[in-house]
């Protein structure tokens, strides 16, 4: 089976519009799904689940959200971690106020709460753009974290200032809290990741995605052909924040379990997600996956290679990691502004012609 469209005739616009136009890609997609749902849970141990797979999936959701804002709509945000914190604290408040509420619903509602907050902090985007907007979102980052650490209501006046996730289960399976099995955590993250990626794909391929991209590419022309910039920009903030909020809710609810806003959702995390989007590929769903995978796996790989095998001190490995990421960002921005997803596209274009490139 060769990698090409030839012979795979599309007879309707629906089939021409599908996500994976090449048959090989469609099969590959189902194989990946089968591995994720059936094979991985059987072969994976707790270490791999907790240090790589679960954070990878949570970061994918956050990166998808940020990619909708930056990659698709062209609005720069440095407040991602603060919006994740909103999702986390919303989860905490909702689930302690309504203990009977299904936990998946809590995660979704937390996303909606974050959406509302995101729209509020997205308002400046109607007047300013680019660098100045980034600074405005930076204000969100510092203000929200300050709010969450300062006002006792948000952490139920606990003496430590931390929020910790109580035990919640659905259909008799414990999903959050200390006793949750890593399989339950894995499947929760997997279900959310697949669903959110599907939503992101649908939104970006339809008219909504096109209005976002129109605003990104040339906002004045977009307005003249009938795009309402107010709705386009704020809807982008709303959707983006929804994704980021759900990621924050999962990060707190099923992954970390206990969180202190300033520590878990500091500016560093905002930049981490931003780097995922840049390295992975702006304006690409696949790019969000690639970027998240790269930045989650890289530290683990470096640790295994340098600390465990070569016996380097751990802080040296950590510094090396920062340097590598920094260098990569510069290289990517100069050489391939559309990131790893664009590299993958180039490979696909070559594959289509292989082995006769002329």
């Amino acid at each position, binding site marked *: 089976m060769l990698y090409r469209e030839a012979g795979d005739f599309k007879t309707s616009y629906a089939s021409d519009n599908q996500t994976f136009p090449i048959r090989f890609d469609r099969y590959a997609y189902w194989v990946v799904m089968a591995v994720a749902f059936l094979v991985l849970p059987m072969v994976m141990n707790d270490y791999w689940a907790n240090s790589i797979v679960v954070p990878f999936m949570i970061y994918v959701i956050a990166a998808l959200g940020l990619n909708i804002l930056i990659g698709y709509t062209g609005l720069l945000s440095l407040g991602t971690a603060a919006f994740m914190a909103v999702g986390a604290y919303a989860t905490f408040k909702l689930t302690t106020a309504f203990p009977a509420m299904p936990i998946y619903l809590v995660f979704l509602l937390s996303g909606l709460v974050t959406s509302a907050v995101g729209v509020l902090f997205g308002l400046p985007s109607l007047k300013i753009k680019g660098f100045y907007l980034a600074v405005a979102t930076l204000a969100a980052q510092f203000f929200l974290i300050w709010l969450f650490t300062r006002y006792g209501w948000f952490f139920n006046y606990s003496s430590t200032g931390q929020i910790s996730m109580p035990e919640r289960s659905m259909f008799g399976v414990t999903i959050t809290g200390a006793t949750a099995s890593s399989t339950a955590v894995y499947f929760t993250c997997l279900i959310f990741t697949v669903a959110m990626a599907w939503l992101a794909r649908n939104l970006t391929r339809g*008219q909504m995605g096109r209005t976002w991209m129109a605003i990104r590419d040339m906002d004045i022309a977009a307005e003249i052909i009938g795009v309402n910039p107010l709705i386009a920009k704020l809807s982008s903030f709303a959707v983006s924040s929804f994704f980021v909020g759900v990621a924050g809710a999962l990060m707190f609810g099923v992954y970390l379990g206990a969180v202190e806003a300033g520590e878990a959702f500091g500016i560093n995390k905002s930049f981490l997600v931003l780097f995922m989007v840049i390295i992975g590929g702006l304006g690409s769903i696949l790019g969000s996956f690639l970027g998240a995978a790269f930045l989650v796996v890289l530290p683990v790989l470096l640790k295994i290679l340098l600390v465990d095998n070569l016996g380097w001190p751990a802080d040296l490995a950590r510094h090396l990691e920062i340097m590598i990421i920094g260098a990569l960002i510069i290289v990517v921005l100069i050489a391939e502004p559309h990131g790893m997803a664009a590299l993958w596209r180039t490979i696909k274009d070559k594959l289509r012609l292989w082995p006769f490139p002329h």
Partner: protein
Amino acid sequence: MLDQPAEGYVTADGRQIGPVVLELKNITLRFGGVEAIKNISFDIREGEIRAIIGPNGAGKSSMMNVISGFYVPQEGEILYKGYKRRKMPPYQVARTGIARTFQNIALFEGMSVLDNIMTGRINLMKSGFLKQALWWGPASREEDEHRAKVEKVIDFLEIQHIRKTPVARLPYGLKKRVELARALAAEPQILLLDEPMAGMNVEEKEDMSRFILDVNDEFGTTIVLIEHDMGVVMDLSDRVVVMDYGKKIGDGTPDEVRGNQDVIDAYLGVAHE
């Protein structure tokens, strides 16, 4: 000068020209102390090809921007379909059935040709946010229906071979054509073309002229056109407005305008005593 009946007439080549659809009354537009448009009035009839010509800096593009709502004139009023148009942002003007192209191509460079043209249908697509997010029945059906309409425009303008190409990779002439396609996809009643043939070679100009005539003929679209190539303007248009230094110096059929002494002076210069 103009003595056509108000309810419309039939041109020599058999096209039906209707009553006045858009009327500009005493429009004055200032940028600070500069008067870009000085007290200009003219009308546009349904189904006609109306050209605006004039030397560089005459205020033609400003006029276009006034019609498309991008600039709001300080004085004067715009009557559209008999009603005074209230002050509204450009995206609402687009919804009233006015589409345009730009002098410097304003396509969405990061999107494919197909997506660019589909974006032109923004005002015609109705399915809401949730339906789109779930790609649920009506949303995907609507997408396909509009795709079919867009394919007709693509056929019409003969750009089938590039429909999936990113716009950034296209040559200039094709970009101009894609921009026309995007405007046409909106199914406008009035189509504003700001120098559709600027920078084109003779062959491309002929193609573009043919498309403009076909659009007007087949869809009955009213066309307002800014163009510098006098041959093209005189051939295509039913009536011509001539501007110079923000003032209207001529208005009428191509023949009337060609014989107008003010117009000749503006283009060829006047001997000063």
